[in-house]
């Protein structure tokens, strides 16, 4: 039988960028958990990801998925110096905001808010977009992420200089580059293989 697309059932769709918990509904058939090979299961890396239709869909190419996930984890979780976790998440959220990935922006704006405790600034990024004034250091990180996200890329020495002036060393700047670059990977998968759903609040226009 030829493969077919999935049409998600009627659902609440987010109407604005939000820090609320969203779902993601696939447009292509994920693997059925019980039908997965050992290799496909191992490619999820974290057993809890078995619940996620996104990861069970990507597990159709297990080698690419596993390497993707391990790249992601080192860029965002490696605790050895460089950019603080909150600002790696800020770069992820800014990239997602600029590309228009409402789902990715929701997850990483939550993380940015949690690790920085700057909920109001994170919400301003979501509400006003990537030109919001978030203070010089955060605005420099957002501007660098945006310049790396344009196609063709417009990131230049002026972005490096501005980051250095706000106190980032070269390892931290490399972390900004990797965080923004990684979300150019992740946004394209989330945006093109399915769509976000929820939350109830967004339906009331309250996001």
């Amino acid at each position, binding site marked *: 039988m*030829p*493969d*077919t*697309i999935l049409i998600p059932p009627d659902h609440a*769709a987010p*109407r*604005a*960028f939000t820090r609320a918990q969203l779902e993601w509904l696939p*447009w*292509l*058939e994920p693997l059925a958990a019980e039908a997965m090979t050992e290799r496909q299961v191992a490619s999820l890396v974290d057993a809890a990801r078995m619940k996620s239709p996104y990861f069970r*869909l*990507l597990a*159709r*190419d297990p*080698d*690419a*998925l*596993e*390497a*993707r996930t*391990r*790249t992601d*984890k*080192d*860029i965002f979780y*490696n605790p*050895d110096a*460089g950019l603080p976790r909150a600002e790696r998440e800020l770069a992820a959220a800014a990239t997602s905001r*600029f*590309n*228009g*990935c409402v789902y990715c922006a929701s997850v990483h704006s939550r993380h940015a808010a949690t690790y920085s405790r700057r909920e109001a600034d994170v919400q301003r990024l979501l509400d006003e*977009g990537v030109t919001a004034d978030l203070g010089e250091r955060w605005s420099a990180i957002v501007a660098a992420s945006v310049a*790396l*996200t*344009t*196609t*063709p*890329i417009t*990131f230049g*020495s002026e*972005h*490096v200089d501005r980051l250095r002036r706000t106190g980032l060393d*070269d*390892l931290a700047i*490399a*972390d900004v*580059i*990797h965080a*923004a*670059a990684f979300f*150019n*990977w*992740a*946004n*394209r998968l989330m*945006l*093109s*293989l399915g769509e976000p759903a929820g939350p109830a609040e967004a339906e009331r226009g309250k996001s």
Partner: protein
Amino acid sequence: MRGTADVIDALVGIAPGSPLDAIRARRPEARSQAQATYHALFAPEAPGAVSGQERFAIARFVAGLHGDAAVAAFYAEGLAASAAPAALGEAVDAASADAAAQGPYGHYPAGPLSRENVIGPTYRVDAKTRAALGLRLAAAFEHAHVLVFHPRDATPDALKALLDAGWTTTDVVTLSQIVAFLSFQIRVVAGLSTLSGR
């Protein structure tokens, strides 16, 4: 350059012992797993139904859309090494020149975000290029253009167009990973090159 050497290191020109080599060494998994992703997508153990020629043709197209001559040349070399006829390489170059745009643009679902809609081109492969690429690659290029420049315009119908052109669900996952991974790799190369003052 397509052997076991780290592709990002090679494209940036990172020499052992250089400052950027030391910086990349602080994120060893990000470095090795980016390379493992390259390996999974361009020298897969189990290539499935997506040929090496298709993989390199798509990568060359995506690098061309980014206007990155060095990365495009790297994948052009891979395409040539996959025994692609010269006419295919020429068709890929013609397509990437024809498909040039500036992203990201696209639409949001109707509502408060509609004011942020940005209009841009929808790419269709012309008849001459389509004949050289074949229906399957032509459909992949049209989809890759959406992913590169206006990913928020992606729809289930776009995936249906790929299925109709002979891509299976699993093939579409691989195709999407190729385009999305290139979007990462090209940015790491560009960013680190700028950081190193090149």
